[in-house]
């Protein structure tokens, strides 16, 4: 046996999140090589900022996916949009209303999560269908309330979301705090234990006395609240809410879960991988952009890269 430090380094490639970070590094290197280093600090800062949005919704999605096959939250984009538009309209540019605005956003998430869960539970609709159809409702609400108004966020909030502390974007700090909290919940709290049990074997979990329904409800609510927080931050960051602001986060939220090495079969989740996946998703697109590839080729390559990462990570697991 080697000493603990080297052996834990040797164990690294077996960590499910390892490959997401390796791929992010390679992608960054490829971009760096092309631009010969110019603008690399801007690239890092942008990657950290945009990855934050993907990471927060990804963490919510991860909790849902951990509950096992068929569990996925497709209402994330619509919840983001609704929370973003409602809170910005409420704040109406007033700095004093920043925190109440955040409260509005989080309340939207809470309500959306409860509505999703009630659809699933009371009407016995599969989660995919329930969250998909609910998302049309949320999107329509956002359109109805918004009426195309483009309201600027309060200045202090805009400054906060675009600012940084010691070179690290403020948003990234928020995202990392959420990640750490989620890691704690998953690894150390009884909720995390229960969630994993439900994801492995719902029937056995029920028969062990786990409050399965409460776990499910909390998970869907948690996912929606994280989505609404992301909507609030994204709208403030980009200078106003837009009705299509959530669109790309549907696939990203699922992709980062998969790339990060969580088990789609349920029961197994890891938080670092979400961040790895979120960074990768941004870096791949910006790399392809800087190589000057057209939109079509970009999408094809993005898909191919994701498949390659997932294949590499799962092949590793199989041989270990």
């Amino acid at each position, binding site marked *: 046996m080697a000493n603990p430090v080297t052996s834990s380094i040797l164990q690294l490639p077996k960590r499910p999140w390892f490959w997401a970070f390796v791929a992010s590094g390679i992608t960054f290197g490829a971009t760096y090589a092309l631009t010969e280093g110019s603008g690399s600090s801007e690239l890092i800062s942008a990657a950290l900022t945009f990855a934050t949005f993907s990471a927060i919704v990804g963490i919510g999605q991860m909790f849902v996916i951990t509950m096992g096959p068929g569990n996925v939250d497709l209402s994330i984009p619509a919840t983001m949009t609704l929370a973003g538009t409602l809170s910005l309209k409420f704040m109406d540019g007033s700095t004093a209303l920043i925190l109440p605005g955040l409260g509005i956003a989080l309340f939207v998430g809470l309500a959306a999560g409860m509505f999703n869960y009630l659809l699933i539970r009371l009407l016995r609709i599969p989660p995919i269908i329930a969250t998909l159809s609910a998302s049309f409702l949320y999107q329509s609400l956002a359109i109805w309330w918004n009426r195309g108004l483009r309201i600027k966020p309060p200045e202090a909030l805009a400054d906060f979301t675009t600012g940084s502390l010691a070179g690290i974007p403020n948003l990234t700090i928020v995202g990392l705090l959420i990640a750490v909290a989620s890691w704690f919940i998953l690894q150390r*709290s*009884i909720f995390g234990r229960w969630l994993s049990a439900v994801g*492995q074997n719902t*029937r*056995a979990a029920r028969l062990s*006395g*786990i409050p399965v329904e*409460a776990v499910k409800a909390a998970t869907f609510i948690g996912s929606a609240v994280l989505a609404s927080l992301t909507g609030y931050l994204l709208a403030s960051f980009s200078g106003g809410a837009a009705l299509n602001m959530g669109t790309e986060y549907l696939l990203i939220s699922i992709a980062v879960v998969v790339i990060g090495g969580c088990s789609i079969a349920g029961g197994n989740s890891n938080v670092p991988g979400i961040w790895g996946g979120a960074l990768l998703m941004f870096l791949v697109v910006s790399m392809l952009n800087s190589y000057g590839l057209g939109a079509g080729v970009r999408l094809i390559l993005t898909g191919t890269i994701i498949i390659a990462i997932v294949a590499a990570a799962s092949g590793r697991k199989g041989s270990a």
Partner: protein
Amino acid sequence: MQLATTAGSSPPAIPLVALLDARMAFGAVRALDGVSLTISPGECVGLIGHNGAGKSTAVNVINGGLTPTGGSVQYTLADGSKGNGAAVARACGIRSVFQELSLCPNLTIEETIRVPHRDLKGFGWRKTARKRIAKALDQVFPGHGIEPGMIVGDLSIAERQMVEIAAGFAEGSIPARLVILDEPTSSLDAAVARQLLDHVRKFCASGGAVIFISHMLGEVFDVATRIDVMKDGKIIDSRPTSDFTQQGLIDAMGHVASTKAEARSQTSREDRIGEEVLNTPEGLSARRGEIVGLAGLAGHGQAEALARYFVSRSAGIHHTKTPEVAFVAGDRGRDGIMPLWSILQNLTLTHLPSLLRRGLVDQKAEDTLAQDWKQKIGIRTENMNNPILSLSGGNQQKVLFARSLASSAPIVVMDDPMRGVDVGTKQEAYDMIRREAEAGRTFLWYSTETDEVVQCDRAFVFRNGQISAELIGEDITEENILAASFEMHEEAS
């Protein structure tokens, strides 16, 4: 069927199938332990016995589905030549109708018929199939009201069973000469069941042979010309039906006197058993410190009754440090094990709400609890952090026991927990259950093994999803359980 008469007319019976000292072992389990029997044209053999007596294995050896690990199986074809093996069994006209319905739910009736009837092929096979199954249904179940074009999934379970039986008797390129019916009437009502019995008699009278397996002794008496009784992989009695009485049959099935009854409990019932702690609408009841057995044939509603009771007493919304009921799974993969977890995490799951410190799981307390139970129950592992799947089945079962017993639940529900557990572990578990009961815990214990039920203070025997008898103390004997498990009279007669 008409063709079968030619085979039957050949005078004194040349057996269709002859088993000579057939043995079948699955690993260490000897499912058949030297079975010799012959079935001749015109015979209807009633095959009866307890769960796990080896009936299904015998059937699968007879129809060629299993190749015996010892002894021989010989078939006599319609032209008088002999042979063995699955292909010969099929050529011999041996058909099986199973209790577990083997039709494909997404196909139409005529389409599913093609699976056993392999000659249905080429252009227009559907039409042939339709005629074939319609004719058979008309013969066996006149007035059945089933259309061959119907989707199997849309049929009721009784209709599916009827289709399956009819397919067994339907004509084909190889006429049916021996039809094996495994619990054919379990989902049929009395009138339809009588149609079947009538058809079986007609079929045998015209030279066909039938093996009839049923837990409804009345039916067996009604239709069988000979009854073979199986126990522990052997045929322990074989006589013409007229030589048996129903009581004699029950005695024959389970004549081994129980020695366990004496070993029951050291403390007397009166000292140990307190007030009533549970009472379900369907009639289950138990008192403090009592070990209550749920007996009867497998699949007669015991497991469902336990699950219903458990779910009714533990809400899916709230969690509690003091659960009322804890559950010990017998079907470990389906109901118990968390396959991704360590032994420790599996063990502490139910008790976890009591191991919290400031909202987080107290890992030290969890460790202590696991070590404690590792000692108490003897889980054979070096490290409780090893994956649960590294343990043998018996040790996994111990972990599941510990999961429930570690909790403070005053009532423990056990769903046939000794399934696939070796003898040594069983004894340890029996001792533990008795100790816990003496300490005031109540056990609801479903078991398919009579040896276990006779250890209980009280037993409820289930039949067709209902409690058919309540036995107390010394009355819990194999004979009484069997008598209550079997339908003594033909229904509605």
